[in-house]
Each structure stands twice: as structure tokens, then as C-alpha cells.
């Protein structure tokens, strides 16, 4: 057993590190480090830099422009990005849709969409959840009725992250009412500027607008926008869930957040001493660090299996649960670290260009909103309860 990188991997690590130092925009780095709300342009700018370098789509096969990295190289890239407070690339086009197109799309679809995804020229969002189909995604009701060479789509999607930014949306729609609800679902691509599409912002607990409800009213969608065959949507959506499982734990991000927590706790005072010298507070940080060490090592064990050619199992559920538990615990301690100074709330403190004097610790203003907002992480992407159901069945045979 060996945790060390090979000389080639070390060289790669250095290459990534130097690239990030030189090319990752400082203004975006500051935003990420300080928890400032990110705009579409921040993502596009950074993704175009990565695209130019050939690194924007580590998961893509080389034939489509992927860098041809080994699993370990992908891990190193992810780790270095985390350590440099990098913006995570937006997954909808690059990580979620593109592999679906590669596996299920026609040549025309690949031709039409892939380059724009790679270059961040067309922005995608995901239309899965509906107001009455959350954990039970397969019960979705948005209908697409075939009329000649179009589908007429009616229904509504919700929790659509970046829906207000997006040019296009990949959706799951119901194309027939068979008895098994999974059967009648199809995978359809919809233009966000098509007549009948409208979005309405959902303001979340932190006061911010990132997610949306999307309304679809008699939207005409050409049949060539169907991916795969009609009725295969559920299979396609499920195959998508198998991608990028080792990055789901977000270990590098959490490590960075623990660094931040320790820094704040060493700057805040309690009984005339730095807060971090309080044994009880320190022990709480330690407990999270230990969980994170375990998670990182579990992540590496999965990676090691993948590198050895084994197909990964249902570990992604474990990584998701433990990953979000750690993330949530860190946000709670971050909020706790500033005590009373988590109270002041001013939405503009979380947006670019805010210049006033901070109240309390300079980072205090974002900590409560982040703590509350981060509650979502155990809900989205298949709630942690659903993940446990999956593991009980798939791993334990219960």
C-alpha cells in the first residue's frame, strides 16, 4: 500500500499547480475564497481558459477532446483545483449531458452540441425534478405529445439551477402513460428561448436566487431533439448517475473549508485567548477532520480500484452521504466560530463589489447564509435517505 504519487504523477501535479497559479483569475479566486456569489460570466471565463488548455473536460474520451488522464491524474487535478480555491466547472453540459450524447446521441446531435459545450458557448440546465416528483423522480408528469415531427411539451420543472442563465435544458418528459411509470419517460433537449418556456426564480433560505421553476406551455420541440429512443429516458438518466463518482465527496473543497475554519477560529477570541485554543471547540474541529480523513482515504481506495481496472460499485452513495455530512458540519462550525457576528444579514455582502466595513470578523457575513443554504446538500442529487435506500438494496441485499 502506497499513498505516494509516482514521479510522473508528481510532475503532473506540479504542472497543474503552476498552470493554476498563472491562469486562474485572481478575482474569481477571491470570490470563491470569500464565499461571494458567482455569476455566469465567472464560470464562462474560467471554463474557456480550461478549454484552451484542453483541461475543461477531464472525463471525456480523448477522441472528443478529453485530456486522456488516468484516474489518479483526474484526482490530482481535482485536488489542486480545490487547494487553489478554483471554481468548479458547471456540470450540466460538461459532466452530465455530454457523456449522454456520446453514449446515446446521434452523430448529428454530437456535431450540433458538443463543441458548444466544450467551449462554454451554449449554457445548459437540467430539467428533471418537478413539484410533485422529487425523491420519486420517476413519477414526473411533464408531458411531451408527438405531433408530426414535433413534440408538444406541457408541464413544469423545478429546482432548475442556473435556469435563468441557460440557453438550453435537457429534460425528462413523459411520452406515454404505460403502467410502469419508469417506462414512458424520454430524454428531450429544449431551447430555453422557445415560445412557451418561462422561468420563475426560487429564492432560497439564504435569500439568494440560483434555482428556478421552469414552466413549459405548449412548447414545440423538434423530434430530432430526442436523445436515444422514445421511452429510454429513465435508462439514460440512470446511466448518467454513474459518472464522476469519485468527485462527489468534494474532499478538496472541504479541506479548504477546514483551513478557513481554523484561520477564523485562530483570529476570533474567547476568554482573552484565540478561540481555537478552547479545547471543546478544537475537539469539534478534530472530529470533522477525522471524518474527512476517512472520507479522503475511502475516496482514494475507490480510485485505486478504478485504476486497477475494477468497476466501481455503489460507493458513490457512501461518498455522497459522508461528503455532505462533512460539508454541513463545517458550515455549522464556521457559523459557530463567529458567535454573535453570524447574526447580521445583508444580501449585498454576498455579492461582488461590497465595500463596507465588515461587522465582526471580515468573513462573518456569509457564514449563516451558507450554513442554512448548505442544508440543501443532503437533499439534492438524491436525498441522503434515498442514498441509504440504494445502499441497503445494492450493497447489503436488504
Amino acid at each position: 500500500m502506497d499513498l505516494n504519487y509516482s514521479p510522473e504523477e508528481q510532475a503532473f501535479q506540479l504542472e497543474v499547480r503552476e498552470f493554476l497559479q498563472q491562469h486562474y483569475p485572481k478575482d474569481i479566486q477571491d470570490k470563491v475564497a470569500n464565499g461571494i456569489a458567482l455569476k455566469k460570466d465567472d464560470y464562462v471565463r474560467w471554463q474557456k481558459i480550461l478549454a484552451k488548455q484542453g483541461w475543461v473536460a477531464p472525463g471525456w474520451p480523448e477522441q472528443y477532446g478529453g485530456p486522456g488522464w488516468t484516474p489518479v491524474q483526474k484526482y490530482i487535478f481535482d485536488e489542486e483545483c480545490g487547494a487553489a480555491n478554483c471554481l468548479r466547472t458547471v456540470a450540466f453540459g460538461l459532466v452530465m449531458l455530454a457523456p449522454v450524447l456520446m453514449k446515446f446521441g446521434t452523430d448529428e446531435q454530437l456535431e450540433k452540441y458538443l463543441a458548444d459545450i466544450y467551449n462554454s458557448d451554449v449554457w445548459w440546465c437540467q430539467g428533471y425534478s418537478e413539484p410533485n416528483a422529487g425523491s420519486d423522480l420517476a413519477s414526473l408528469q411533464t408531458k411531451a405529445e408527438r405531433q408530426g415531427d414535433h413534440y408538444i411539451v406541457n408541464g413544469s420543472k423545478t429546482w432548475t439551477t442556473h435556469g435563468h442563465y441557460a440557453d438550453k435544458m435537457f429534460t425528462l418528459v413523459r411520452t406515454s402513460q404505460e403502467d410502469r411509470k419508469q417506462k414512458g419517460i424520454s430524454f428531450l433537449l429544449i431551447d430555453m428561448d422557445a415560445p412557451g418556456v418561462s422561468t420563475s426564480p426560487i429564492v432560497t433560505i439564504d435569500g439568494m436566487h440560483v434555482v428556478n421553476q421552469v414552466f413549459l406551455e405548449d412548447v414545440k420541440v423538434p423530434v430530432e431533439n430526442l436523445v436515444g429512443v422514445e421511452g429510454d429516458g429513465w435508462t439514460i438518466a440512470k446511466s448518467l448517475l454513474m459518472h464522476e463518482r469519485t468527485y462527489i465527496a468534494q474532499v478538496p473543497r472541504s479541506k479548504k473549508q477546514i483551513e478557513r475554519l481554523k484561520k477564523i477560529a485562530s483570529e476570533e477570541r474567547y476568554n482573552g485567548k484565540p478561540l481555537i485554543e478552547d479545547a471543546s471547540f478544537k475537539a469539534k474541529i478534530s472530529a470533522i477532520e477525522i471524518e474527512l480523513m476517512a472520507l479522503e482515504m475511502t475516496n482514494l481506495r475507490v480510485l485505486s480500484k478504478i485504476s486497477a481496472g475494477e468497476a466501481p460499485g455503489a460507493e458513490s452513495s457512501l461518498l455522497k452521504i459522508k461528503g455532505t455530512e462533512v460539508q454541513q458540519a463545517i458550515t455549522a462550525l464556521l457559523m459557530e466560530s463567529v458567535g454573535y457576528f453570524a447574526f447580521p444579514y445583508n444580501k449585498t455582502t454576498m455579492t461582488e463589489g461590497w465595500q463596507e466595513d465588515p461587522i465582526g470578523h471580515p468573513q462573518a457575513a456569509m457564514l449563516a447564509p451558507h450554513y442554512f443554504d448548505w442544508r440543501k446538500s443532503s437533499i439534492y442529487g438524491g436525498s441522503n435517505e434515498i442514498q441509504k435506500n440504494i445502499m441497503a438494496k445494492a450493497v447489503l441485499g436488504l
Partner: protein
Amino acid sequence: MNLEFTEEMVMLQDSLNKFVQNEYDFETRQKISREGIGYKEANWQSFADMGLLGVPFDEQYGGFGFGQTGLIVVMEAMGKGLMLEPYLASVVLGGQLVQLAGSETQKEQLLPQLIGGELKLAFAYVERQARYNLSDVECRAESKGEGFVLNGSKSVVFNAETADKIIVAARTSGDTISQQGLSLFIVDPTAEGVTARHYETYDGLRASELNFDQVNLDADALLGTLDQAYPVIESVIDSAAAAICAEGVGVVSQLRQKTVEYLQTRKQFNQPIGNFQVLQHRAVDMFMAEEQMRSLSYLAAIKVTEGESHERIKSVSAAKVYLGDARAIVGEQAAQLHGGIGVTDELDVAHYVKRLGLLNTLFGDRDYHLQRFSQQ
């Protein structure tokens, strides 16, 4: 031994519940919280009319003399309605400081006005470096002639913007962190040298940062005995901590109830999600936390009223520790069980969750109170 509320308490409870129902539905509450001062002046006048502002005060000053038991009835309703009016700041903290430390003149002057709704108070005791330590006070008042001159800053002073008078804890002698040498002063927020920065808190309440730069105070600005304010502060903060535990009970009971209703009505996989055993047990955990929290809130109220300081500290800290547990067991789980909708601004659940978060921190978080309990 009798743990039922008296008839007059039940009446008070009923009228408060009615008030919340009629005047404080969630829509109205949200509208109020977004307006200028963050609460509704007309409501404050209703409070005065209902006698709420006199609940803990002696009858000779126009109060009801209901003491801490009365406070928990009021505060539980404040929690249920997520109310925004400065009851905690003005009545529980300000008024009780006056009642406990004030001279007869000060009491006669201030309490009837406060009870009538004409005077509002706030209490400035938090400092930047102090965290939850009540005696870590750097703000200083020095003798000058017959009076004092006040210098320093106070943080997170609830409802200072609308207070007519602010009671300030300042050091008149002793080292920082020493319990000896603290005094209380009644300060006019419009006095020269007082500057303020007002803001909203994350759960919609209002607070302020205050700065005192050479503020001149008359001799009668002193509230209570010079240098001896610490026990008074500790005792009133304990009363307020017990009060917000009752507020927490109100919040927790609403969250539990709303979550159970959601589990009964939200359908997934062709059935109410309340059919799923894991969610059922989670709801039971919320219920048990609510009951235990209520028990400790009552115990704290009783001990604040009649216990020795050792017993008072233990029971108040116990209730505060449990409030911290409730933040996780009830608050976080209420959001989780509601799914996405639980973390949106439009649903009341998110706002109860936020209030619970704030109450956990206020007057010291779970850790602080667990240590304080341990040291008794």
C-alpha cells in the same frame, strides 16, 4: 406539586394564540419584517393594551406580576408566530434590569412608561472580543464631575434603532474579564457621541453596532450599584435565556407540527411519505425533543423565579443545551424532511429554522452552556 398553568396563564396563552392567528399569519409577518423598523408599531400598542408589556413587573408599577412563568407564556407565542416586536429587548432585558437594579425613582419613572408602551429599552452588553463571556467588557465609563464619560463599542444590540433608552454595561473598574467593576448606565441614543449602525439579522430581527465616543452621562444615569452590576446582568440574562428557551419551544412545536402535516400530505412513490418508517422515527425524535425541551423550559422558569443562583444556572444552561440539540434534531430535520421546499424563502419552515439557529447562539451556544453547567 403542580405543573399546570394557572387559569390566568391559560387566559393569557389563549389571547396570545388568538393574536398570532389573527394578526400574525406568515404573509403578514414577512411583510412586517421587510418594512423599515422591522416590526409593527401598532402591534406594540396592542401588546400594551393586552397588558403583555407588564407581564413580569410588580403590580405597584402597573405590571401583572406574573414573573418568569408569564414570560414563558408570552415567549412561546412569540416563537409560534415568529414575531418581530422588541419584547425580548425592551421588556425581558431592559425592563427587568430596571426592576432588579433600579432605584425606586428610576423604577417609578421608567416602568409605567414601558408597560404603557410609550418607552422602549434595549440592552447593550455584547462586545467584539467577548464572545459569550458576560464579564469580558472593555467599554469604559470614567467618573467625571458628578457624572461619567462613556467610551467604547457594543455589538449586536437588539432593537437599538427603536429604543428610547439604551442600558449599557460598562467597566468602571477592574481588569477586562473581571466580574468585579461592571456598572450599568442608562444612555440616551440621541446623546452626543453616540453613533450607531443598524442592520437586519438573518432571521429578520433588527440589531445594531453602537459606538460611544466621550459620551457624557449624568450621575442618575447609573442603574444600580457602581462596580457591582455583574450579578444583576447574569441574573437578567439568565431570565432572558430561559425566556428564549420558551420561544424555542414555540418554534420547535411549529416545526414539528408542520413537518408531521407535510409527511401526511406529501406523496411520493404513490403514498404519503409519512408511511416511510425512517421518516416516522425522525418525526418521533422531533416530538421527543420538543417534549424534553418544553420540560427544561418550564424547569428553568421555575428555578429563575425561586432557585438559588447555582440551581438557576444549572437549569437555564440545561435548557440552552437542549435548545442546541433541538436545532439539529428539529430544525435541521424539519428542513430535511420537507426536501427542497424546506430551504426556500417562501415557506415558513425556513424561517422557523433560522430563528432556531439564532436562539441557539443568543446568550451563548450549546458548548458555552454545557461548560457552564459542568462548572457548577
